[in-house]
């Protein structure tokens, strides 16, 4: 039953791609939920996370990318990139968005686009560093190979036509606990309650004694950290990074957030899984050139019939 194998394979690929998109989409949706800003710099922040991971890997100087040392490197990269992206996102908010908190939403949006350009060019510069992992930095703009730390062996046996690899396991093993943790933070902790309050009504939240600036900062920190985790997972799954990768990743994640209902976290995850699956099914059963048409066609249809997205409830003015 070859067609069953083929279908299962697309399901695995689609869900794994979708989970990576979901982690990035959460960053968009959290920020939108709290300050109604479409943070265009988020995709590029994610890109810088991948560059940091590769730099860390180069600094570790592992000769042999297998076994326990590889897994240790994965953990170190995850922590480093998450911390880096979290702090960077927090810094971007401080420098580029906070001064505009009371300005029009459009100024904020333009500021985000500017931040995005700065980050992209930072990535271009970073790729030119004279390190072995960047091929000596001769071609700064060229895509960089990310070492295959996670093996590509087939867990279903080498004979099986369907491939299920440790890479897929890694994607799920990192994303699912992260999402559960995030849900716990948002629904069960004091900070989460403050975040929800600020999202609902920042003025009222302030009147209740919530330090909204701190809460917004924390949101950027958490959203950025998730982008950092996503960047490492993405790099280990696709094994290529480039200073331009943030654009498409951000576009997919943003679409996922809108599809699911921007501002809603379960919505972002649902939207991302839908996009991952639609992409892989369209690539497999139709032609790749139709894939974007179909993804955005679905987005248009959903927005026509459910303007607030799949799981969105609050109908708020969009930028």
């Amino acid at each position, binding site marked *: 039953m070859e067609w069953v194998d083929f279908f299962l394979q697309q399901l695995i*690929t689609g869900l794994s791609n979708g989970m*990576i998109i979901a982690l990035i989409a959460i960053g968009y949706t959290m920020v939108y939920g709290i300050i109604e800003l479409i943070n265009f710099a988020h995709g590029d922040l994610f890109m810088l996370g991948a560059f940091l991971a590769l730099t860390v890997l180069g600094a570790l100087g592992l000769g042999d990318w297998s076994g326990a040392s590889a897994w240790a490197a994965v953990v170190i990269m995850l922590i480093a990139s998450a911390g880096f992206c979290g702090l960077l996102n927090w810094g971007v908010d401080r420098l580029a968005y906070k001064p505009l908190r009371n300005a029009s939403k459009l100024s904020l949006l333009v500021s985000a686009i500017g931040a995005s350009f700065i980050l992209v060019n930072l990535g271009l510069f970073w790729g030119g560093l004279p390190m072995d992992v960047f091929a000596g930095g001769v071609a700064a703009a060229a895509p960089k*190979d990310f070492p295959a730390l996670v093996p590509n062996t087939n867990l279903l046996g080498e004979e099986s036509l369907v491939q299920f690899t440790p890479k897929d396991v890694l994607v799920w093993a990192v994303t699912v606990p992260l999402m559960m943790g995030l849900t716990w933070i948002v629904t069960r902790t004091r900070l989460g309650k403050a975040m929800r309050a600020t999202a609902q009504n920042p003025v009222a939240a302030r009147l209740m004694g919530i330090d909204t600036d701190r809460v917004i900062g924390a949101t950027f920190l958490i959203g950025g950290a998730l982008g950092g985790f996503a960047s490492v997972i993405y790099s280990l799954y696709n*094994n*290529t990074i480039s200073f331009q990768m943030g654009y498409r990743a951000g576009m997919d994640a943003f679409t996922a957030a809108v599809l699911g209902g921007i501002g809603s976290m379960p919505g972002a995850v649902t939207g991302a899984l839908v996009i991952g699956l639609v992409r892989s099914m369209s690539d497999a059963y139709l032609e790749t050139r139709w*894939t974007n048409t179909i993804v955005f066609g679905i987005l248009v249809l959903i927005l026509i019939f459910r303007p607030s997205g799949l799981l969105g409830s609050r109908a708020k003015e969009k930028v």
Partner: protein
Amino acid sequence: MTLKTSMLAAVLALASSAGALAQSGTLKIVSSLPRTGSANAQTGTIVNGIKMAIAEVGGKIDGYEIVYEDWDDASPQRGNWDPTVEAQNANKAVTDPTIVGYIGTFNSGAAKIAMPELNKAGLVMISPANTYSGLTKPGMGEANEPTIYRPSGSINYFRVVPTDDLQGAVAAEHVGGSGAKKVFILHDRELYGKGIADVFQKRAKELGVEVAGFEGIDTKASNYKSLCQKVKFSKADAVFFGGTTQSNGGQVAKDLRSVGFTGMLVVPDGCCEEAFIQAAGASNLEGNTFVTFGGLPPAELTGRGAEFREGYRKMFGTDPEAYAVYGYEAARVLLDAIKRAPTKDRAAILKAVSSTKDFDGALGTWSFDANGDTTNRVMSINSVKDGKFVFVRRAGDAPAGGAKPE
């Protein structure tokens, strides 16, 4: 003096000062290549080649100083060549009377934009890298090609690289010759990639190789796992990718191997650069990946070409990449024409370029034919070993007066 005549005098004075500028001994050559974005890896070596050719004549010809400007036709937004920027470059070149030669473009799509503009102005354009056949060859592209690029009716566009119709066929012959029965063709939906894939498909069918699929990829996708699985399940024993490193050739190669496709992969010269190996990961290319190239790799160049290699190494401290020699050759043929031109103006230089015959270049001895194409047709098939391109064999026709065809 009436107002009218004084104005006329002023205009005349302006015109003569512009004329004086052109005769003051400065001739400007510009190149328009994507210098922002990932193509920079290849265009950097082309620019080096141009600089080297100018340095070799000491930056002076017949008392005229040769000034070179390196223009970018890419924009950061696209990270690739940008139609708007290329159009601006072409206009800027046309309006600057000191510019006598335009070296470019890198992308065939960009050439389409610059060609008619420069043609109207009679400014000579020499491309070191455009390989799309329709730019010069009637009947190879759209019905209105190439006349649409020649509004003035005469030819001002020349190229020093062999075209895709030759390269795509060589790639198909390589796949057919290896005994492959079924091939899956992918392309990047750009002029160059789709063009070469079309030629490949035509030749593969002629050779009796079954075409399992012909698909354009999304060049910005994060991975091609689903598509590559489709290739694997189609039981094709070879894949041809018409595209470049910038259009994500590295990721295609990587994902083909990661889904367990073990057949032959053939890619064209747009992937013939170190950046492709870097992007794909050397281990993914080892063994069964072949790269066709419209010429010989720098290490295989002999005679004048070997001198070029040594000179380049001396001047820039690294070995030349595949395209460096084309930048060098394009600049040299232009400088040679400037030297031969009786007067140093655009028309005379254009005439001198078009009459280039039996040019003793780094690529062999060659001429420009009636379409503006080089008569040099030497191609090579390369593979990857230990992270480096290695020459496998020579293919295609021999250049005029060169070595024997295979």
